[in-house]
């Protein structure tokens, strides 16, 4: 790696991390009803979240174990970054789906609509970047899926989470109607 390239990489990574921190700070503030940065969960939600983390942990464990036991067959078709990132995506999806379905995803002081709007924006940005990579033909190089697929994976993950939120919303409304009738 040349000195010039190395500096460019460090500056790029630095700007990316800084942008990430600013976005997370904005996300934390924008999605709260009380303007606080901290999420407040009740005791039942904490139990649900704990179980969600447990299932996500085992998902990642099993995924990594299968990757190792398979003699890294995946490495023949995917770059290492994509394989690792896909494991993280799987774990996040398991946690989010479990927590959403059991009403432990949104904190007491969170505005679900605002969270969904930001998820939608993040999803669209990542999907657009992923589709651009596909159009440019940079997503597969030398027969391997490259790290450029990570945006697409991230976009699909957010889309899936939004889908679970939408289905749960419908299911919750129906349950509420049934409860009101009783």
């Amino acid at each position, binding site marked *: 790696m040349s000195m010039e390239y190395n500096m460019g990489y460090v500056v790029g990574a630095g700007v990316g991390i800084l942008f990430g921190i600013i976005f997370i700070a904005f996300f934390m503030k924008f999605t709260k009803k009380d303007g606080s940065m901290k999420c407040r969960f*009740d*005791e*039942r*939600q904490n139990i649900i979240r704990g179980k969600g983390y447990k299932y996500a942990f085992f998902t990642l464990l099993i995924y990594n174990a299968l990757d190792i036991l398979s003699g890294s067959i995946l490495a023949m078709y995917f770059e290492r970054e994509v394989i690792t990132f896909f494991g993280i995506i799987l774990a996040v999806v398991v946690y989010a789906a479990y927590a959403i379905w059991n*009403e432990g995803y949104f904190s*007491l002081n969170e505005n679900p609509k605002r969270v969904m709007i930001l998820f939608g924006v993040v999803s669209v940005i990542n999907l657009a970047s992923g589709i651009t990579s596909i159009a440019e033909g940079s997503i597969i190089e030398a027969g391997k899926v490259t790290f450029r697929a990570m945006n697409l994976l991230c976009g699909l993950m957010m889309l899936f989470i939004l889908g679970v939120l939408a289905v749960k919303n419908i299911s919750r409304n129906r349950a509420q109607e049934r*409860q009101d009738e009783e």
Partner: protein
Amino acid sequence: MKNLKLKAARAGMDLSQQELADKVGVSRQTISAIEKGDYNPTINLCIALCKVLGKTLDELFWEE
């Protein structure tokens, strides 16, 4: 097992699940889960519910 006593006490005070949830600092879904018998609250939450609804622990949570 459904907690009909809690539901009746709440209805008796003309409180919605959301209003009761706000008063004790939990989500509406948690109140719903307790009433449906899907969640057993901690003693701290039971006491908070009793205080808001003006009932004793026996009146709300003792099974006969």
